[in-house]
């Protein structure tokens, strides 16, 4: 097994995440896309760790932090979704352009 195998998957996930982020109208869907991107990073980190085998498994540690932070972000994101949904009765991001220029 080569690291690149995993990196390719990660790159694909990351790019798909970006795609999703750019096209999805629903905020929750956008959040899903973000999760894809963060997960791609995790795959990177773990794959590198598998190749490096550092003494403290730094890559895995890093990925644990990323997972935790991602979870927190989801929490925050959903809270924001709830907040705006209550005010606007919509979770579509392109409904939100009160402020521009």
């Amino acid at each position, binding site marked *: 097994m080569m690291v690149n195998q995993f990196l390719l998957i990660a790159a694909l996930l990351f790019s798909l995440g*970006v795609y999703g*982020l*750019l096209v999805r109208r629903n905020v929750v869907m956008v959040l899903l896309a973000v999760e894809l991107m963060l997960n791609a990073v995790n795959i990177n980190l773990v794959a590198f760790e598998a190749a490096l085998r550092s003494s403290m498994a730094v890559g895995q540690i890093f990925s644990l932090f990323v997972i935790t932070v991602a979870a927190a972000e989801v929490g925050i994101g959903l809270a924001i979704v709830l907040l705006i949904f209550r005010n606007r009765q919509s979770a579509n*991001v*392109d409904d*939100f*352009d*009160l402020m521009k*220029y």
Partner: protein
Amino acid sequence: MKSVFVLAAEEAPHGAVELASGGVLAQWAGLMLVLPFAAFLLIIWRGKHMKYKGAEFAIGAMAVNLVMATALFISNMVEGIFHEEHFEIAKIGLWEGKNLIFELGWVVDGLSIMMYFVVSFVGLLVFLYAVGYMHGDVRVTWFFASLCLFAGSMLVLVGSANLVQLIIGWEGVGVASYLLIGHYWEQKENSSAAIKAFLVNKVADVGLVLGAIYVGLSLGDFRFSTLERAAVEGDAVLAGVAAAAGLLLFFGAMGKSAQFPLHIWLPDAMAGPTPVSALMHAATMVTAGIYLMARTFPLYQNLAGDIEILGSLDVRGLMVIVGAITLFGMGLLALVADDIKKVLAYSTVSQLGYMMTAVAAGGYTAGLFHLFTHAFFKALLFLGAGSVIHAVHSNNMSDMGGLRKDMPTTFWTFSIGSLALAGIIPLAGFWSKDEILATLDYEGYQAVMWIAVAGAFVTAFYMTRAVALTFFGTYKGHGQPHESPSIMTTPLIALAVPSVIVGFFNVPGVKLGGLGNFTEWVGARSVPMGDHHAEAIDWRLAAFGLAAGLGGIIVGWLIFGRDAETQAARDKVEVPVLYPLLRQKYYMDHAALGVTGFIKGPTARAVNWINTYVIDGVVNGVGAVVKALGGLVYNGLDQRGVDGIFNGIAAGSDSAGRALSRLQTGRVQNYATGFVVGALVLVLIVVVAA
């Protein structure tokens, strides 16, 4: 603490001439330069509360000046005086390692003493006269203050020991003339005339200023004595710039001395009160140019004069030509003027042409002598004209006529002045004009000499016309004219005397006892002038001049003395002396009319037309064009172009800002797109750059 004024070190004048120092009088001559200004301040301060509205101060100052000037004049007669005083007013940098300085000061030598005398003498009389003339007029106080400024500036000019101070006096004269010409500024014509005078002079001043710069920076010094010495010694550097400097200075002189084509301001300048005209035409202002030429005479005589500038035309030749055109062409114009002051004004221009021609041709003494004599009789004529105007309340000769009975003093003095101007022996004008003819003859300008003779004819002709129309025939104006008060007639008489006698100051070969003659008096300079002096009068030339003068009078008399419309005028024709001629009046009249008709008609009209539409037109046109150019520059270039660029930049940034803030769509996904694309582009740029 050092004294504010640091007296420049005395330097012995150069040259072979042994001259006296002039003693205390010369050391204090500067007082004459200052007194009129003191009077000016006093008039401004207290004038309104004085009985004669401040004229007292002006007259007082002028009287003191005249005393001093007379004393100097006499001492200069006894022994030639040369004395300079210099007060440094600034060091302005280095020139060849030594300080380049500006100075004020005065020079007391033959030339300046003559000018002091003329200015003070004529000035005093004009001031006195003005008390009467201006009585009850508007702004009398201000008028006398300005007169003081005028006379004072002229004294500063003629007393100056260096070019810089000369410029100060020079433009001071200009400003004073502006103030005086525009005395009745409620009418736009008057203020326009004042502006015209100032601006035309200012144009010429460019020449003076640049000429001063050429001279000053060639010598590292602005003093006349340095210039004179360098010119006589043939200083190489000065020689290098001599033509340029000479022409520039001459250009300056042309403005003040109203040489063709810069004479145009002068007739308009008649807008001022008559005493101003008298002062301006006799003693101050117009003589300044001649004075400048005389002051820098060694430059022309030794260096500049013979430098060829256009083909074989040399500097001197150019100057003579300008003078000749002025003397003849402008004289003709006097023939067609109805305004008596305009007649006199053109006459002045013409006489200035004589002076300029003489000085240019190399006749230092001749030019100055004519200046000297002319000052008296021209002042006399103007004051006389003023007296008439005062009486009839009009400037136009068509409103006058037959005044000789009502105003006898004026008539007689005016006649004396006219005869002197016409060059009738033995009045002053005869001698000085003769000297000019002699000089032109000697220096080889025969053609010009004949023009000068012709000019003499014209001069006599128009003066006769003026006298005839004013004092003979019948009165055509309104009211009953009276002789002017004695404060006005006294100056007339006082001027008539020298108009008669001063010609004898310089009869060739004649010396006034131990006092020498005019030639020696004005020859008292730091260096010899090197002009030619005839040892005896050349009666051949004198006869030509006299004949021309008499001819002019006779022809003039025949025409104007026998004014067909006025019985009185026809009566006058039968003056016994002229009677034989008048017997054949038919031929004579026709012949004279033919000749003069041509001169007065097409020629004069042509000249007048050229003057009005070409020269004046050019000047007015230049003014209009310049103003239009101003509009173009301001509206077209400044507001649209230069400012437009900056406003354009501002407007551009504004709309760029608008365009850029359009990027801020408010859609978060557009932002994210920008975000990712930005990141990718950054990578791309950096990778490509690396």
